[in-house]
Protein backbone atom coordinates (compact mmCIF):
# COMPACT_ATOMS: atom_id res chain seq x y z
CA UNK A 1 0.00 0.00 0.00
CA UNK A 2 1.74 3.18 -1.15
CA UNK A 3 0.50 6.70 -1.76
CA UNK A 4 1.41 8.38 -5.03
CA UNK A 5 3.42 11.57 -4.52
CA UNK A 6 1.39 13.31 -7.24
CA UNK A 7 -1.75 12.86 -5.18
CA UNK A 8 0.04 14.29 -2.15
CA UNK A 9 1.13 17.32 -4.15
CA UNK A 10 -2.40 17.81 -5.46
CA UNK A 11 -3.72 17.59 -1.91
CA UNK A 12 -1.23 20.21 -0.78
CA UNK A 13 -2.58 22.55 -3.46
CA UNK A 14 -6.11 21.94 -2.12
CA UNK A 15 -7.38 19.72 -4.92
CA UNK A 16 -10.67 18.32 -3.57
CA UNK A 17 -10.65 15.23 -5.76
CA UNK A 18 -7.18 14.23 -4.61
CA UNK A 19 -8.08 14.98 -1.02
CA UNK A 20 -11.05 12.65 -1.20
CA UNK A 21 -8.84 9.92 -2.62
CA UNK A 22 -6.34 10.45 0.18
CA UNK A 23 -9.09 10.44 2.80
CA UNK A 24 -10.31 7.03 1.69
CA UNK A 25 -6.76 5.74 1.83
CA UNK A 26 -6.17 7.25 5.27
CA UNK A 27 -9.48 5.99 6.60
CA UNK A 28 -8.50 2.40 5.95
CA UNK A 29 -5.02 2.89 7.27
CA UNK A 30 -5.65 5.08 10.30
CA UNK A 31 -9.12 4.23 11.52
CA UNK A 32 -7.91 1.07 13.35
CA UNK A 33 -5.40 3.23 15.20
CA UNK A 34 -8.09 5.72 16.18
CA UNK A 35 -10.37 2.92 17.30
CA UNK A 36 -7.70 1.71 19.69
CA UNK A 37 -7.74 5.02 21.48
CA UNK A 38 -11.49 5.55 21.60
CA UNK A 39 -14.39 3.70 23.08
CA UNK A 40 -16.72 4.30 20.16
CA UNK A 41 -16.50 4.62 16.42
CA UNK A 42 -17.87 8.15 16.28
CA UNK A 43 -15.17 9.54 18.53
CA UNK A 44 -12.58 7.60 16.57
CA UNK A 45 -13.81 9.12 13.31
CA UNK A 46 -13.77 12.58 14.83
CA UNK A 47 -10.12 12.08 15.79
CA UNK A 48 -9.36 10.72 12.35
CA UNK A 49 -10.87 13.82 10.76
CA UNK A 50 -8.78 16.08 12.99
CA UNK A 51 -5.67 14.14 12.11
CA UNK A 52 -6.51 14.26 8.40
CA UNK A 53 -6.95 18.02 8.60
CA UNK A 54 -3.47 18.31 10.10
CA UNK A 55 -2.07 16.03 7.42
CA UNK A 56 -3.54 18.20 4.67
CA UNK A 57 -2.28 21.38 6.30
CA UNK A 58 1.19 19.93 6.78
CA UNK A 59 1.59 18.53 3.28
CA UNK A 60 2.77 21.89 1.97
CA UNK A 61 5.78 21.77 4.29
CA UNK A 62 7.07 18.32 3.33
CA UNK A 63 8.80 16.90 0.32
CA UNK A 64 6.23 14.54 -1.19
CA UNK A 65 8.86 12.70 -3.23
CA UNK A 66 10.90 11.44 -0.30
CA UNK A 67 8.17 11.29 2.31
CA UNK A 68 7.35 7.98 3.98
CA UNK A 69 3.69 8.91 4.01
CA UNK A 70 2.36 5.96 5.98
CA UNK A 71 4.72 6.45 8.89
CA UNK A 72 4.33 10.23 8.78
CA UNK A 73 0.53 10.12 8.72
CA UNK A 74 0.47 7.57 11.50
CA UNK A 75 2.73 9.78 13.58
CA UNK A 76 0.47 12.77 13.11
CA UNK A 77 -2.57 10.69 13.99
CA UNK A 78 -0.98 9.36 17.14
CA UNK A 79 0.06 12.85 18.20
CA UNK A 80 -3.48 14.06 17.56
CA UNK A 81 -4.92 11.27 19.67
CA UNK A 82 -2.50 12.01 22.49
CA UNK A 83 -3.28 15.72 22.31
CA UNK A 84 -6.98 14.95 22.58
CA UNK A 85 -6.28 12.68 25.49
CA UNK A 86 -4.40 15.48 27.26
CA UNK A 87 -7.24 17.92 26.71
CA UNK A 88 -9.92 15.50 27.89
CA UNK A 89 -7.91 13.85 30.63
CA UNK A 90 -10.18 15.00 33.44
CA UNK A 91 -13.35 14.08 31.61
CA UNK A 92 -12.04 10.62 30.69
CA UNK A 93 -11.03 9.83 34.23
CA UNK A 94 -14.56 10.74 35.32
CA UNK A 95 -16.32 8.35 32.96
CA UNK A 96 -13.75 5.63 33.44
CA UNK A 97 -15.20 2.29 34.46
CA UNK A 98 -18.60 2.74 32.86
CA UNK A 99 -19.64 0.47 30.07
CA UNK A 100 -19.26 2.28 26.80
CA UNK A 101 -21.48 2.13 23.78
CA UNK A 102 -18.87 0.13 21.94
CA UNK A 103 -18.60 -2.42 24.73
CA UNK A 104 -22.36 -2.88 24.84
CA UNK A 105 -22.51 -3.30 21.08
CA UNK A 106 -19.67 -5.73 21.23
CA UNK A 107 -21.22 -7.92 23.91
CA UNK A 108 -24.64 -7.90 22.24
CA UNK A 109 -23.11 -9.03 18.98
CA UNK A 110 -20.61 -11.52 20.32
CA UNK A 111 -22.48 -13.35 23.07
CA UNK A 112 -23.46 -16.10 20.68
CA UNK A 113 -19.95 -16.56 19.42
CA UNK A 114 -18.27 -16.76 22.79
CA UNK A 115 -19.07 -20.45 22.87
CA UNK A 116 -16.68 -20.95 20.07
CA UNK A 117 -14.00 -19.46 22.31
CA UNK A 118 -12.21 -18.05 19.36
CA UNK A 119 -11.67 -14.46 20.43
CA UNK A 120 -12.40 -12.00 17.66
CA UNK A 121 -10.07 -9.06 17.15
CA UNK A 122 -12.77 -6.57 18.15
CA UNK A 123 -13.40 -8.43 21.34
CA UNK A 124 -9.75 -8.41 22.20
CA UNK A 125 -9.31 -4.76 21.38
CA UNK A 126 -12.41 -3.92 23.41
CA UNK A 127 -10.57 -5.15 26.47
CA UNK A 128 -8.40 -2.07 26.22
CA UNK A 129 -11.45 0.03 27.01
CA UNK A 130 -11.99 -1.90 30.23
CA UNK A 131 -8.67 -1.08 31.83
CA UNK A 132 -7.63 2.38 33.14
CA UNK A 133 -7.36 4.78 30.30
CA UNK A 134 -3.80 5.90 30.94
CA UNK A 135 -2.59 2.31 31.18
CA UNK A 136 -4.37 1.50 27.91
CA UNK A 137 -2.67 4.48 26.26
CA UNK A 138 0.76 3.38 27.39
CA UNK A 139 0.04 -0.18 26.27
CA UNK A 140 -1.13 1.06 22.85
CA UNK A 141 1.85 3.32 22.38
CA UNK A 142 4.43 0.80 23.51
CA UNK A 143 3.12 -2.50 22.19
CA UNK A 144 1.25 -1.54 19.05
CA UNK A 145 2.64 1.83 17.92
CA UNK A 146 6.24 1.00 18.78
CA UNK A 147 7.16 3.98 20.94
CA UNK A 148 9.76 3.57 23.65
CA UNK A 149 9.27 4.58 27.27
CA UNK A 150 11.20 7.82 26.85
CA UNK A 151 8.96 8.96 24.01
CA UNK A 152 5.83 7.88 25.87
CA UNK A 153 6.99 9.78 28.91
CA UNK A 154 7.39 12.92 26.79
CA UNK A 155 4.05 12.48 25.07
CA UNK A 156 2.04 11.83 28.22
CA UNK A 157 3.96 14.14 30.56
CA UNK A 158 5.16 11.45 32.90
CA UNK A 159 8.43 9.83 33.91
CA UNK A 160 9.83 6.76 32.21
CA UNK A 161 9.33 4.79 35.41
CA UNK A 162 5.64 5.69 35.48
CA UNK A 163 5.31 4.63 31.87
CA UNK A 164 6.84 1.24 32.69
CA UNK A 165 4.54 0.86 35.66
CA UNK A 166 1.46 1.58 33.51
CA UNK A 167 2.61 -0.94 30.91
CA UNK A 168 3.04 -3.56 33.58
CA UNK A 169 -0.38 -2.76 35.04
CA UNK A 170 -2.01 -2.94 31.63
CA UNK A 171 -0.50 -6.35 30.90
CA UNK A 172 -1.55 -7.64 34.31
CA UNK A 173 -5.15 -6.46 33.89
CA UNK A 174 -5.36 -7.74 30.33
CA UNK A 175 -3.96 -11.09 31.44
CA UNK A 176 -6.67 -11.34 34.11
CA UNK A 177 -9.37 -10.51 31.59
CA UNK A 178 -8.06 -12.96 29.04
CA UNK A 179 -7.94 -15.72 31.63
CA UNK A 180 -11.43 -14.84 32.86
CA UNK A 181 -12.72 -14.80 29.30
CA UNK A 182 -11.03 -18.10 28.65
CA UNK A 183 -12.63 -19.64 31.72
CA UNK A 184 -16.09 -18.34 30.73
CA UNK A 185 -15.66 -19.76 27.27
CA UNK A 186 -14.81 -23.16 28.69
CA UNK A 187 -17.91 -23.06 30.94
CA UNK A 188 -20.10 -22.28 27.93
CA UNK A 189 -18.69 -25.27 26.08
CA UNK A 190 -19.36 -27.56 29.02
Amino acid sequence: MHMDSNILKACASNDRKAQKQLYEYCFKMLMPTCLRYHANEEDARSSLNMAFLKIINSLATVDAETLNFNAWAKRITTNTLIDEYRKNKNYLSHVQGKETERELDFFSENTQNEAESDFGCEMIMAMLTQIPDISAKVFNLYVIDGYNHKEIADLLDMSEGTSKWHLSTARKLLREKLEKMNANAQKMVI
Partner: protein
Amino acid sequence: MNWSDDEIDKLFQESSSQLNVPYQESFWEEMETLLPAPQKSRRGIAWIWGGFMACILLIGTLFIPFKKIDTPSLGRVTAGKQLPGTPVHAMQASAVQHAVPLTETQVESTSEKATVPTKPVHVAATTFTTLQDATSPLNMTVSTQPGQTSGQRLQAARPALAPNTAVALAAPATPDFVAATESSVHEAENTAVSREPQSVAPETATATTDPVTDISGSESAATTVDNLPALPLRTFREPIAQTDLLPTTFDLLERNRHLYIQLGAGIAQSYISGTNHSSMMPTVAFGAGYLYDPKGWGFSAGLNFQSAFPANLEITQRSQIYGFGVTTYQQNLRYTQLYTVELPLNIQYRKGRHIFSAGLAPTFLAGTLMNLSRSENDEEQENLWYLGKKEGLKSWGLKPTLAYQLKVGKTTMIGMQLNLQTVSQIDPQQFSGKHTALPLSGQITIRRTLSK
Protein backbone atom coordinates in the same frame (compact mmCIF):
# COMPACT_ATOMS: atom_id res chain seq x y z
CA MET B 1 -4.05 -20.84 30.29
CA ASN B 2 -1.24 -18.57 31.44
CA TRP B 3 -0.52 -15.62 29.20
CA SER B 4 3.04 -14.41 29.03
CA ASP B 5 3.83 -10.74 28.27
CA ASP B 6 5.00 -11.59 24.77
CA GLU B 7 1.86 -13.57 24.04
CA ILE B 8 -0.35 -10.73 25.20
CA ASP B 9 1.63 -8.26 23.09
CA LYS B 10 1.46 -10.46 20.04
CA LEU B 11 -2.28 -11.07 20.47
CA PHE B 12 -3.02 -7.35 20.59
CA GLN B 13 -0.66 -6.54 17.72
CA GLU B 14 -2.35 -9.03 15.46
CA SER B 15 -5.82 -7.99 16.56
CA SER B 16 -5.11 -4.33 15.95
CA SER B 17 -4.02 -5.04 12.39
CA GLN B 18 -7.31 -6.84 11.74
CA LEU B 19 -9.58 -4.07 12.96
CA ASN B 20 -11.62 -2.81 10.10
CA VAL B 21 -14.40 -0.27 9.73
CA PRO B 22 -16.28 -0.08 6.43
CA TYR B 23 -15.90 3.23 4.64
CA GLN B 24 -19.00 5.29 3.79
CA GLU B 25 -19.32 8.26 1.45
CA SER B 26 -21.01 10.27 4.19
CA PHE B 27 -17.73 10.23 6.11
CA TRP B 28 -16.07 12.27 3.37
CA GLU B 29 -18.94 14.76 3.26
CA GLU B 30 -18.46 15.29 6.98
CA MET B 31 -14.73 15.69 6.49
CA GLU B 32 -15.11 18.11 3.61
CA THR B 33 -16.89 20.62 5.81
CA LEU B 34 -13.75 20.80 7.97
CA LEU B 35 -11.32 21.38 5.12
CA PRO B 36 -10.34 24.93 4.19
CA ALA B 37 -12.01 26.35 1.12
CA PRO B 38 -9.85 26.19 -1.99
CA GLN B 39 -7.71 29.31 -2.24
CA LYS B 40 -6.88 31.09 -5.44
CA SER B 41 -3.23 31.59 -4.70
CA ARG B 42 -0.79 32.96 -2.21
CA ARG B 43 -0.33 36.09 -4.21
CA GLY B 44 -2.11 38.12 -1.57
CA ILE B 45 0.49 37.25 1.04
CA ALA B 46 3.26 37.96 -1.44
CA TRP B 47 1.79 41.38 -2.17
CA ILE B 48 1.51 42.20 1.53
CA TRP B 49 5.14 41.26 2.11
CA GLY B 50 6.21 43.11 -1.03
CA GLY B 51 4.38 46.22 0.07
CA PHE B 52 5.88 45.99 3.52
CA MET B 53 9.39 45.72 2.15
CA ALA B 54 8.76 48.58 -0.28
CA CYS B 55 7.62 50.77 2.62
CA ILE B 56 10.79 49.94 4.52
CA LEU B 57 12.92 50.84 1.52
CA LEU B 58 10.98 54.04 0.96
CA ILE B 59 11.32 55.10 4.57
CA GLY B 60 14.98 54.14 4.45
CA THR B 61 15.68 56.34 1.46
CA LEU B 62 14.18 59.32 3.29
CA PHE B 63 16.93 58.93 5.84
CA ILE B 64 19.71 58.83 3.25
CA PRO B 65 20.30 62.42 2.11
CA PHE B 66 22.97 63.08 -0.46
CA LYS B 67 25.47 65.71 0.54
CA LYS B 68 24.57 69.12 -0.78
CA ILE B 69 27.14 70.86 -2.94
CA ASP B 70 28.48 74.08 -1.39
CA THR B 71 27.24 77.30 -2.95
CA PRO B 72 30.13 78.44 -5.10
CA SER B 73 30.91 81.85 -6.54
CA LEU B 74 31.98 82.09 -10.10
CA GLY B 75 35.47 83.09 -9.01
CA ARG B 76 35.84 80.20 -6.63
CA VAL B 77 34.23 77.56 -8.65
CA THR B 78 37.34 77.34 -10.67
CA ALA B 79 39.91 76.09 -8.27
CA GLY B 80 39.93 72.49 -9.18
CA LYS B 81 36.38 71.70 -8.20
CA GLN B 82 34.49 70.34 -11.08
CA LEU B 83 30.84 70.97 -10.79
CA PRO B 84 28.47 69.04 -12.94
CA GLY B 85 28.46 70.67 -16.32
CA THR B 86 31.58 72.73 -15.81
CA PRO B 87 34.00 72.34 -18.70
CA VAL B 88 37.54 71.35 -17.84
CA HIS B 89 39.10 74.30 -19.62
CA ALA B 90 37.04 76.68 -17.54
CA MET B 91 38.67 75.41 -14.39
CA GLN B 92 42.11 75.53 -15.91
CA ALA B 93 41.58 79.05 -17.06
CA SER B 94 40.38 80.12 -13.69
CA ALA B 95 43.42 78.68 -12.04
CA VAL B 96 45.50 80.92 -14.27
CA GLN B 97 43.36 83.83 -13.29
CA HIS B 98 44.06 83.18 -9.66
CA ALA B 99 47.73 82.88 -10.35
CA VAL B 100 47.85 86.34 -11.95
CA PRO B 101 45.32 88.42 -10.09
CA LEU B 102 44.05 91.56 -11.69
CA THR B 103 43.92 94.87 -9.99
CA GLU B 104 40.81 96.75 -9.04
CA THR B 105 41.19 99.02 -12.01
CA GLN B 106 41.43 96.34 -14.54
CA VAL B 107 38.45 96.25 -16.75
CA GLU B 108 37.34 93.59 -18.99
CA SER B 109 35.17 94.50 -21.87
CA THR B 110 33.27 92.08 -23.80
CA SER B 111 32.26 92.22 -27.36
CA GLU B 112 29.25 93.73 -28.89
CA LYS B 113 28.23 90.28 -29.76
CA ALA B 114 28.97 87.44 -27.47
CA THR B 115 27.63 84.09 -28.38
CA VAL B 116 27.43 81.82 -25.42
CA PRO B 117 26.19 78.30 -25.73
CA THR B 118 24.03 77.42 -22.84
CA LYS B 119 23.36 74.13 -21.23
CA PRO B 120 20.80 72.73 -18.85
CA VAL B 121 21.55 73.18 -15.23
CA HIS B 122 22.27 69.96 -13.45
CA VAL B 123 22.61 71.29 -9.95
CA ALA B 124 19.42 72.13 -8.20
CA ALA B 125 18.93 75.35 -6.30
CA THR B 126 22.50 76.58 -6.59
CA THR B 127 23.33 80.24 -6.43
CA PHE B 128 26.15 81.73 -8.45
CA THR B 129 27.42 85.13 -7.46
CA THR B 130 29.31 86.78 -10.23
CA LEU B 131 30.62 89.84 -8.46
CA GLN B 132 31.12 89.70 -4.77
CA ASP B 133 31.22 93.35 -3.79
CA ALA B 134 27.84 94.05 -2.34
CA THR B 135 28.27 97.80 -2.72
CA SER B 136 29.03 97.62 -6.35
CA PRO B 137 26.28 98.54 -8.72
CA LEU B 138 27.38 95.58 -10.70
CA ASN B 139 26.62 93.18 -7.95
CA MET B 140 24.40 90.60 -9.53
CA THR B 141 23.17 87.30 -8.40
CA VAL B 142 21.88 84.69 -10.71
CA SER B 143 19.84 82.06 -9.03
CA THR B 144 19.20 78.95 -10.92
CA GLN B 145 16.15 76.83 -10.72
CA PRO B 146 15.96 73.16 -11.53
CA GLY B 147 15.78 72.71 -15.26
CA GLN B 148 16.66 76.28 -16.04
CA THR B 149 19.33 76.83 -18.62
CA SER B 150 22.13 79.30 -18.24
CA GLY B 151 20.63 81.29 -21.06
CA GLN B 152 17.40 81.56 -19.21
CA ARG B 153 19.27 82.66 -16.13
CA LEU B 154 21.01 85.28 -18.14
CA GLN B 155 17.79 86.61 -19.50
CA ALA B 156 16.35 86.70 -16.03
CA ALA B 157 19.30 88.57 -14.64
CA ARG B 158 19.73 91.09 -17.43
CA PRO B 159 17.16 93.70 -16.35
CA ALA B 160 19.03 94.06 -13.09
CA LEU B 161 22.14 95.36 -14.78
CA ALA B 162 22.96 99.01 -14.82
CA PRO B 163 22.46 100.59 -18.22
CA ASN B 164 26.17 101.23 -18.72
CA THR B 165 27.36 97.79 -17.81
CA ALA B 166 27.77 94.82 -19.89
CA VAL B 167 28.43 91.30 -18.94
CA ALA B 168 28.47 88.12 -20.79
CA LEU B 169 27.54 85.31 -18.56
CA ALA B 170 27.67 81.73 -19.25
CA ALA B 171 27.39 80.23 -15.85
CA PRO B 172 28.97 78.02 -14.92
CA ALA B 173 31.26 78.49 -17.89
CA THR B 174 31.82 82.19 -17.33
CA PRO B 175 35.52 81.83 -16.44
CA ASP B 176 36.05 80.94 -20.08
CA PHE B 177 36.51 84.63 -20.74
CA VAL B 178 39.55 84.66 -18.54
CA ALA B 179 40.73 81.41 -19.86
CA ALA B 180 40.83 82.69 -23.36
CA THR B 181 43.35 85.41 -22.53
CA GLU B 182 45.70 83.67 -20.15
CA SER B 183 45.89 80.14 -21.38
CA SER B 184 45.89 78.32 -24.58
CA VAL B 185 43.01 76.18 -23.67
CA HIS B 186 40.64 78.05 -25.94
CA GLU B 187 42.60 78.31 -29.09
CA ALA B 188 39.97 76.69 -31.11
CA GLU B 189 38.82 78.60 -34.12
CA ASN B 190 35.35 79.11 -32.87
CA THR B 191 36.59 80.67 -29.68
CA ALA B 192 37.32 84.34 -29.95
CA VAL B 193 37.67 85.81 -26.52
CA SER B 194 40.09 88.67 -26.14
CA ARG B 195 41.20 90.43 -23.03
CA GLU B 196 43.53 93.32 -22.53
CA PRO B 197 45.44 93.77 -19.26
CA GLN B 198 44.03 97.25 -18.62
CA SER B 199 40.93 97.47 -20.69
CA VAL B 200 39.27 95.57 -23.36
CA ALA B 201 37.80 97.28 -26.32
CA PRO B 202 34.42 96.12 -27.37
CA GLU B 203 34.74 93.45 -29.89
CA THR B 204 33.24 90.21 -30.72
CA ALA B 205 33.79 87.53 -28.15
CA THR B 206 32.40 84.13 -28.61
CA ALA B 207 32.77 81.45 -26.04
CA THR B 208 31.95 77.90 -26.73
CA THR B 209 32.18 74.97 -24.52
CA ASP B 210 34.48 72.10 -25.05
CA PRO B 211 32.60 69.51 -27.06
CA VAL B 212 34.18 66.80 -24.99
CA THR B 213 33.06 68.15 -21.65
CA ASP B 214 29.84 69.70 -22.80
CA ILE B 215 27.31 67.22 -21.65
CA SER B 216 24.29 69.20 -22.66
CA GLY B 217 24.34 67.65 -26.13
CA SER B 218 21.50 68.45 -28.37
CA GLU B 219 19.70 70.32 -25.64
CA SER B 220 22.15 73.19 -25.90
CA ALA B 221 20.85 76.39 -27.24
CA ALA B 222 22.80 79.47 -28.17
CA THR B 223 22.10 82.75 -26.45
CA THR B 224 23.36 85.88 -28.06
CA VAL B 225 24.06 88.92 -25.98
CA ASP B 226 24.20 92.05 -28.05
CA ASN B 227 25.36 95.61 -27.43
CA LEU B 228 26.65 95.07 -23.97
CA PRO B 229 28.82 97.92 -22.69
CA ALA B 230 32.23 97.51 -21.04
CA LEU B 231 32.15 95.94 -17.64
CA PRO B 232 34.59 96.46 -14.81
CA LEU B 233 35.68 93.15 -13.47
CA ARG B 234 35.98 92.40 -9.81
CA THR B 235 39.15 90.54 -9.01
CA PHE B 236 40.04 88.11 -6.32
CA ARG B 237 42.34 89.02 -3.52
CA GLU B 238 41.91 86.07 -1.25
CA PRO B 239 44.54 83.39 -1.59
CA ILE B 240 43.60 80.03 -2.85
CA ALA B 241 43.34 77.47 -0.15
CA GLN B 242 45.40 74.40 -0.80
CA THR B 243 42.41 72.22 -0.16
CA ASP B 244 40.55 73.95 -2.95
CA LEU B 245 43.01 72.56 -5.42
CA LEU B 246 42.44 68.99 -4.31
CA PRO B 247 39.77 66.94 -5.98
CA THR B 248 36.60 66.80 -3.95
CA THR B 249 35.22 63.41 -3.02
CA PHE B 250 31.50 62.97 -3.18
CA ASP B 251 30.43 61.81 0.24
CA LEU B 252 27.36 59.62 0.11
CA LEU B 253 26.40 59.99 3.72
CA GLU B 254 26.64 62.93 6.01
CA ARG B 255 27.73 62.89 9.62
CA ASN B 256 25.61 60.66 11.88
CA ARG B 257 24.60 58.58 8.91
CA HIS B 258 26.61 55.45 8.54
CA LEU B 259 26.78 52.14 6.87
CA TYR B 260 27.68 49.46 9.38
CA ILE B 261 28.70 45.84 9.67
CA GLN B 262 27.83 43.70 12.64
CA LEU B 263 28.79 40.40 14.20
CA GLY B 264 26.83 38.63 16.90
CA ALA B 265 26.71 35.46 18.91
CA GLY B 266 24.27 34.24 21.49
CA ILE B 267 21.97 31.57 22.74
CA ALA B 268 18.33 30.90 22.05
CA GLN B 269 15.74 28.82 23.78
CA SER B 270 15.37 25.70 21.70
CA TYR B 271 12.20 25.34 19.69
CA ILE B 272 11.60 21.99 21.25
CA SER B 273 13.04 19.94 24.06
CA GLY B 274 12.96 16.21 24.55
CA THR B 275 12.67 16.52 28.28
CA ASN B 276 10.80 18.77 30.61
CA HIS B 277 13.86 20.96 30.91
CA SER B 278 14.29 23.60 28.26
CA SER B 279 17.42 23.34 26.19
CA MET B 280 19.48 26.04 24.55
CA MET B 281 20.82 26.39 21.07
CA PRO B 282 23.77 28.60 20.18
CA THR B 283 23.47 31.14 17.37
CA VAL B 284 25.93 33.16 15.34
CA ALA B 285 25.06 36.04 13.05
CA PHE B 286 26.59 38.64 10.81
CA GLY B 287 25.00 41.50 8.96
CA ALA B 288 25.19 44.97 7.51
CA GLY B 289 22.91 47.93 7.32
CA TYR B 290 22.30 51.64 7.46
CA LEU B 291 22.37 53.66 10.66
CA TYR B 292 21.12 57.16 11.31
CA ASP B 293 22.75 57.94 14.61
CA PRO B 294 22.24 61.48 15.89
CA LYS B 295 21.91 62.36 19.53
CA GLY B 296 18.39 61.53 20.56
CA TRP B 297 16.18 59.58 18.25
CA GLY B 298 17.63 57.64 15.34
CA PHE B 299 16.94 54.79 13.06
CA SER B 300 18.61 51.71 11.65
CA ALA B 301 17.76 49.07 9.07
CA GLY B 302 19.80 46.11 8.04
CA LEU B 303 20.11 42.60 6.75
CA ASN B 304 21.40 39.82 9.00
CA PHE B 305 22.26 36.21 8.33
CA GLN B 306 21.93 33.93 11.32
CA SER B 307 22.85 30.34 11.86
CA ALA B 308 21.37 28.40 14.79
CA PHE B 309 22.46 25.00 16.05
CA PRO B 310 19.44 23.21 17.53
CA ALA B 311 19.93 20.22 19.79
CA ASN B 312 16.64 18.36 19.85
CA LEU B 313 14.92 19.30 16.64
CA GLU B 314 14.18 15.98 15.02
CA ILE B 315 11.34 14.06 13.46
CA THR B 316 11.19 10.34 14.06
CA GLN B 317 8.89 8.32 11.85
CA ARG B 318 8.39 4.69 12.72
CA SER B 319 6.22 2.07 11.13
CA GLN B 320 5.80 -1.59 11.94
CA ILE B 321 4.71 -4.13 9.39
CA TYR B 322 3.13 -7.26 10.78
CA GLY B 323 3.44 -10.29 8.57
CA PHE B 324 5.80 -13.13 9.15
CA GLY B 325 7.28 -11.53 12.21
CA VAL B 326 7.41 -7.79 12.78
CA THR B 327 9.54 -5.43 10.72
CA THR B 328 10.15 -2.00 12.19
CA TYR B 329 11.14 0.82 9.86
CA GLN B 330 12.41 4.02 11.36
CA GLN B 331 13.38 7.29 9.75
CA ASN B 332 15.08 9.95 11.81
CA LEU B 333 15.36 13.50 10.53
CA ARG B 334 17.65 15.64 12.68
CA TYR B 335 18.24 19.33 12.04
CA THR B 336 21.76 20.41 12.91
CA GLN B 337 21.75 23.96 11.57
CA LEU B 338 19.03 26.47 10.68
CA TYR B 339 19.91 29.36 8.37
CA THR B 340 17.80 32.46 8.81
CA VAL B 341 17.73 35.81 7.04
CA GLU B 342 16.52 38.73 9.13
CA LEU B 343 15.53 42.28 8.22
CA PRO B 344 15.87 44.23 11.48
CA LEU B 345 14.18 47.61 11.54
CA ASN B 346 14.89 49.59 14.70
CA ILE B 347 14.31 52.95 16.23
CA GLN B 348 16.90 54.04 18.75
CA TYR B 349 17.59 56.69 21.33
CA ARG B 350 21.17 57.78 21.90
CA LYS B 351 22.29 59.57 25.00
CA GLY B 352 26.03 60.09 25.10
CA ARG B 353 27.65 56.72 24.54
CA HIS B 354 24.52 54.79 25.40
CA ILE B 355 22.11 53.64 22.73
CA PHE B 356 18.78 52.03 23.46
CA SER B 357 16.80 50.56 20.62
CA ALA B 358 13.65 48.61 19.89
CA GLY B 359 12.36 47.20 16.68
CA LEU B 360 10.94 44.42 14.62
CA ALA B 361 12.73 41.88 12.48
CA PRO B 362 10.85 39.81 9.92
CA THR B 363 12.72 36.52 9.59
CA PHE B 364 12.89 34.01 6.78
CA LEU B 365 14.17 30.50 7.31
CA ALA B 366 16.22 30.13 4.16
CA GLY B 367 17.50 26.61 4.68
CA THR B 368 18.72 23.90 6.99
CA LEU B 369 21.46 21.37 7.33
CA MET B 370 19.97 18.07 8.31
CA ASN B 371 20.90 14.48 8.90
CA LEU B 372 18.60 11.73 7.68
CA SER B 373 19.05 8.19 8.91
CA ARG B 374 16.91 5.20 8.02
CA SER B 375 16.95 1.92 9.87
CA GLU B 376 15.21 -1.42 9.60
CA ASN B 377 14.80 -3.43 12.80
CA ASP B 378 17.24 -1.04 14.49
CA GLU B 379 19.88 -1.75 11.85
CA GLU B 380 20.99 1.39 10.07
CA GLN B 381 20.39 1.33 6.33
CA GLU B 382 21.17 4.90 5.30
CA ASN B 383 22.78 7.96 6.79
CA LEU B 384 22.62 11.05 4.61
CA TRP B 385 23.20 14.78 4.96
CA TYR B 386 20.97 17.28 3.22
CA LEU B 387 21.29 21.00 2.79
CA GLY B 388 18.31 23.23 2.22
CA LYS B 389 15.33 21.13 3.24
CA LYS B 390 12.78 22.60 5.61
CA GLU B 391 10.38 19.77 6.33
CA GLY B 392 8.15 20.56 9.26
CA LEU B 393 9.53 24.07 9.69
CA LYS B 394 7.80 27.33 8.90
CA SER B 395 9.52 29.83 6.66
CA TRP B 396 8.38 33.18 7.98
CA GLY B 397 8.63 34.59 11.45
CA LEU B 398 8.61 37.89 13.27
CA LYS B 399 10.94 38.93 16.06
CA PRO B 400 10.44 41.97 18.29
CA THR B 401 13.83 43.11 19.54
CA LEU B 402 15.12 45.14 22.48
CA ALA B 403 18.77 46.16 22.51
CA TYR B 404 21.34 48.19 24.36
CA GLN B 405 24.61 49.34 22.83
CA LEU B 406 27.61 51.15 24.19
CA LYS B 407 29.88 53.23 21.99
CA VAL B 408 33.42 52.17 22.79
CA GLY B 409 35.07 54.12 20.00
CA LYS B 410 34.27 56.48 17.20
CA THR B 411 33.25 53.63 14.97
CA THR B 412 32.72 50.71 17.33
CA MET B 413 29.76 49.70 19.45
CA ILE B 414 29.23 46.65 21.59
CA GLY B 415 25.81 45.64 22.74
CA MET B 416 23.36 43.01 23.76
CA GLN B 417 19.90 42.33 22.52
CA LEU B 418 16.90 40.27 23.46
CA ASN B 419 14.62 38.79 20.80
CA LEU B 420 11.31 36.99 20.96
CA GLN B 421 10.23 34.75 18.09
CA THR B 422 6.52 35.49 18.07
CA VAL B 423 5.76 33.10 15.23
CA SER B 424 6.93 29.61 16.12
CA GLN B 425 9.24 28.20 13.47
CA ILE B 426 8.16 24.60 13.91
CA ASP B 427 5.09 22.66 12.99
CA PRO B 428 4.22 21.09 16.36
CA GLN B 429 2.40 18.19 14.77
CA GLN B 430 5.61 16.72 13.50
CA PHE B 431 7.85 17.03 16.53
CA SER B 432 7.38 15.17 19.77
CA GLY B 433 8.43 16.61 23.08
CA LYS B 434 7.74 19.91 24.74
CA HIS B 435 7.22 22.72 22.29
CA THR B 436 8.43 26.18 23.07
CA ALA B 437 5.74 28.48 21.83
CA LEU B 438 7.72 31.71 22.11
CA PRO B 439 11.44 31.01 21.91
CA LEU B 440 13.56 33.73 23.47
CA SER B 441 17.01 34.51 22.24
CA GLY B 442 19.80 36.75 23.43
CA GLN B 443 22.81 38.01 21.57
CA ILE B 444 25.99 39.92 22.22
CA THR B 445 26.89 42.08 19.24
CA ILE B 446 29.76 44.14 18.00
CA ARG B 447 28.98 46.78 15.40
CA ARG B 448 31.38 48.86 13.41
CA THR B 449 30.41 51.80 11.27
CA LEU B 450 32.25 52.37 8.01
CA SER B 451 32.56 56.11 8.66
CA LYS B 452 33.30 58.22 11.72
